[in-house]
């Protein structure tokens, strides 16, 4: 009997595996809090605090475009905001740092007093923070707070009020010293314990006559509010309050005035802790609500249990929502659309945030393969991604930067985007940029942005730029200090790589002779740099910090040091504008990196869709967004140029403003003389000429991370003397050959 059961179970398991019973049902989620937006008064530019009035109405303390410290009360009958305080005229020329309610009719404000009246640099440098108790009737009282024990530079030290306990103003300064002042500004005590812990204060809250200070190292410090002496807090409260370091930007606390419940908002959820029952409850998961896109939360829970939250979106918009309990539960949106990027990508986050605001019914979430502080490596992240994809649980949208798109395509892991995206959107992308990702009439990825590389410098140097040997020869002959230094060594190597690497590999064969030549070039630029790394400062990867700043920053060295040339990538409009100014007005020349006469570009944010994803509608919405409105975010990003022809034109061309203007200022040292970098927008002719080159541009080859890493690492070993030229080239060749053989 047992044997029969075993056989049956085995057969069932095997059959299940064969016929694939691992399909995932769509999940539906239930939440018990209904979210409703609360429209705020017009013209609010900063939201500081809120309080519940004795009559049950909500009051907020906010700044408008014209006035600071306005108290608005939401009339629950008329559902409109009414201004409740007189203007604080003596603060009208000040810039506020923070404002808090002390009681229903008074508040505390820290401002940069009369900052708007500063007319000169000298005036500006003499500004100091001012602290005031502000009343509804317009009366203000200045407090002189002695913060001299804190930060060394007193003018930069700022006291942040965190708790008002029995008319004691308790807070901390920049040095993490905790102060207690009375309402006249007299110091009651200073607590220096936190400063010694080398951490920062996240929040402070009074619970059962103790002050709990939440720190960003995950600990909670407890002290007696009256004396500032360290105290032993309630362990369960401490455990509840503990904050994971990455959480603190969304972390917010609120204690109800009756003292019975403590609310905590984190990135994941809103929790409630009953101080009497010592029980914690999760109220709702934040990912189902708009607030998950916000920062700088202010929280209030009214007597009837309604939760009010204000927050700021990444676009700068201030929002306020109320969350009311619905015992029947509300079916919320399905699983979020996951957008995967191997490494952290700020532009992607902004795109997703903007998409979520515009499409509240579809939640998109960014997930990263690895970040700078999670301890994972790129290899770990790729393995995990592949495992997830193979098991059918992968992300919906994948940003291919740093991944081998060819592998995913050849294994049928990607969808044909022609089936998802409107043809009209595709046609706006440069066709040569789409081409590398087109296979058999299908389009399996789209680059949202790109960058190019180039040189700006003296004409005689730029004219020989295409011939690397002659170019380096001229630099060596010039013998100008710092023309290549440790600041731009990696970037110079990157440019050499972009210009010469294609000669070293052809049809998956390595040309050792050309590779030797390339390594020779790396050695020459290293020698020109003056061997600044030397024997005592060896770096495992000599050339690893490239593409960190664009041409508009690199030209500083022309302005400051009068260098004969600079090389850098162009990944924002200012690069082009700076180049045009130097060429048209200062007699410099420019050239882009090219190969056989064709411009070379590198694409960025290459978007593809996982073949397993069933969220076609949501994906279509997201892709349409990033190819239309999202392109504006890419234009603003300063980290890449948009691959959309119209957006690129709109970004670079300004026919009506062809006069030079200051793009930015820079200076070095303690009291620098600031130098302006000038730029001129392109005109239509400039753009058309550039577009002719761009339209036939070739995607930079051999940019697979493995190949580039191997070559640059090998070159670094040779330059530092760790390996001979033959050994370095041989090693790199072997590694690349192995890779190609696979």
């Amino acid at each position, binding site marked *: 009997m047992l044997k029969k059961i075993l056989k049956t179970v085995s057969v069932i*398991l095997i059959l299940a595996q064969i016929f694939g019973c691992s399909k995932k049902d769509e999940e539906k989620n239930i939440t018990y809090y209904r979210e409703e937006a609360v429209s705020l008064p017009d013209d609010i530019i900063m939201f500081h605090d809120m309080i519940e009035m004795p009559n049950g109405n909500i009051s907020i303390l906010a700044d408008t475009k014209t006035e600071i410290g306005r108290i608005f009360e939401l009339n629950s009958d008329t559902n409109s905001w009414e201004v409740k305080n007189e203007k604080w005229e003596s603060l009208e020329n000040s810039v506020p740092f923070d404002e808090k309610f002390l009681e229903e009719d008074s508040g505390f404000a820290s401002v940069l007093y009369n900052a708007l009246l500063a007319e000169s640099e000298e005036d500006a440098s003499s500004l100091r923070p001012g602290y005031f108790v502000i009343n509804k009737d317009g009366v203000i009282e200045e407090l002189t707070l002695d913060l001299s024990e804190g930060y060394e530079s007193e003018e930069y030290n700022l006291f942040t009020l965190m708790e008002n306990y029995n008319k004691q103003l308790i807070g901390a300064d920049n040095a993490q010293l905790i102060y207690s002042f009375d309402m006249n500004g007299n110091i009651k005590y200073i607590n220096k314990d936190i400063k010694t812990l080398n951490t920062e204060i996240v929040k402070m809250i009074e619970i059962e006559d103790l002050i709990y200070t939440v720190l960003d190292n995950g600990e909670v410090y407890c002290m007696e509010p009256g004396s500032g002496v360290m105290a032993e807090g309630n362990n369960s409260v401490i455990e509840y309050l503990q904050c994971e370091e990455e959480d603190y930007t969304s972390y917010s606390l609120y204690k109800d005035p009756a003292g019975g419940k403590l609310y905590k908002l984190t990135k994941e959820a809103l929790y409630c802790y009953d101080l009497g029952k010592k029980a914690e409850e999760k109220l709702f998961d934040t990912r189902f609500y708009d607030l998950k896109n916000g920062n700088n939360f202010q929280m209030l829970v009214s007597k009837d249990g309604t939760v009010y939250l204000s927050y700021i979106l990444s676009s700068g918009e201030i929002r306020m929502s109320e969350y009311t309990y619905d015992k029947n539960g509300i079916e919320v949106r399905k699983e979020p659309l996951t957008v995967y990027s191997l490494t952290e990508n700020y532009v992607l986050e902004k795109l997703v945030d903007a998409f979520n605001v515009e499409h509240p019914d579809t939640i998109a979430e960014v997930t990263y393969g690895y970040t700078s502080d999670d301890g994972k490596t790129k290899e770990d992240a790729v393995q995990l991604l592949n495992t997830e994809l193979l098991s059918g649980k992968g992300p919906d949208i994948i940003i291919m930067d740093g991944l081998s798109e060819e592998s995913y395509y050849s*294994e049928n892991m990607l969808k044909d985007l022609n089936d998802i995206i409107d043809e009209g959107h595709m046609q706006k992308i440069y066709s040569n940029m789409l081409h590398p990702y087109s296979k058999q009439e299908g389009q399996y990825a789209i680059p949202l942005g790109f960058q190019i590389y180039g040189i700006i410098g003296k004409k005689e140097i730029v004219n020989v730029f295409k011939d690397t040997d002659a170019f380096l020869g001229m630099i060596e002959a010039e013998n100008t200090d710092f023309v290549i230094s440790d600041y731009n060594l990696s970037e110079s190597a990157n440019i050499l790589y972009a210009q010469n690497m294609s000669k070293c590999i052809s049809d998956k064969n390595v040309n050792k002779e050309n590779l030797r030549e390339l390594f020779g070039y790396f050695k020459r630029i290293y020698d020109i740099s003056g061997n600044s790394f030397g024997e005592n400062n060896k770096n495992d990867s000599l050339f690893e910090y490239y593409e960190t700043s664009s041409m508009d920053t690199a030209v500083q060295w022309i302005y400051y040091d009068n260098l004969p040339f600079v090389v850098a990538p162009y990944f924002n409009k200012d690069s082009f504008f700076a180049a045009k100014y130097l060429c048209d007005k200062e007699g410099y020349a420019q050239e882009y990196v090219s190969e056989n006469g064709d411009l070379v570009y590198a694409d960025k944010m290459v978007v593809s869709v996982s073949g397993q994803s069933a969220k076609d509608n949501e994906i279509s919405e997201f892709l349409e967004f990033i190819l239309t409105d999202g392109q504006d975010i890419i234009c603003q990003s300063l980290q890449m140029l948009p691959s959309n022809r119209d957006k690129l034109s709109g970004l670079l061309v300004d026919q009506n403003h062809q006069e030079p203007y200051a793009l930015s200022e820079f200076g070095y040292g303690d009291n620098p003389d600031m130098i302006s970098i000038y730029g001129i927008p392109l005109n239509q002719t400039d753009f058309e000429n550039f577009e002719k080159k761009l339209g036939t541009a070739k995607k930079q080859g051999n940019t697979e991370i493995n190949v580039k890493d191997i070559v640059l690492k090998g070159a670094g070993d040779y330059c530092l003397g760790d390996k001979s030229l033959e050994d370095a080239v041989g090693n790199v060749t*072997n590694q690349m050959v192995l890779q190609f053989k696979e």
Partner: protein
Amino acid sequence: MLPGFLGITVFVLLPYLDILLRSFNLNEYNRTPDFENYKIVIANEAFRLAVKNTFYFTGISIPLMVVLSLIIAYGISSYLRNSWLMAGIVLPIMMPVSTLVLLWRTVFSEYGFLNRISGFAEGKGIDWINSKYAMAVLIFSFLWRNMGYAVILWIAGIKSVSVEILQAGKVDGANGFQRFFYIIIPNLKSYFLCIVMLGLVNSLKIYREIYLIAGEYPDEDIYMLQHLFNNWFRDLKVTYLSAGAVIELAFLLTAISMFYIIFKKE
């Protein structure tokens, strides 16, 4: 027995069946097996190189391990009965791989200990791990780490040989050498089988050390099957990976079966 069987089924047999199906391109859309993946894998240069290196490494390191550990075990059991020595021999097995990697970098890098004692000036020595000596370093690492358990097993085997037989041999005039070869060794066959099997399995784990020292693309001489499989997984060449894994398993099973049959016959 049922829980164990279920565990093996779920975590071993079913995944292996999945790999087998993938290697023949069998899925919900294709019910006809084909050998395309096998043809591609067998013809693949990287696969051939990896197989050659793996065979070379296994073919040298396991016999060396067997012989050296037997000699050491005999010496310990006969002359140097010391528990501290035994503990010292087993110590390398307990060392974490990351510590081992650090140790080898200290010894075998171009600035390492080996270059210093062999007279090379600092910075001009041989990078042993990235040179033609890489395989020798690898074999040395394998032996150093894995001989311990083999010695323990041999000692257990030697001690299991009946004292009466040894004394009888001595009485019959056999010297130490003859007693070792004609009495002790024939009685160690099952231990030999066990040590070779374990050695075979452990030889495949050498990948961890190589990967930590030399990354995804080490020197050609120490590019093993696991490197290839790891890189194929990274590049999502799962069907090739599956075919390669099936081929490797087929070799292993064949080798183990042959050993088993030979020793069972005897």
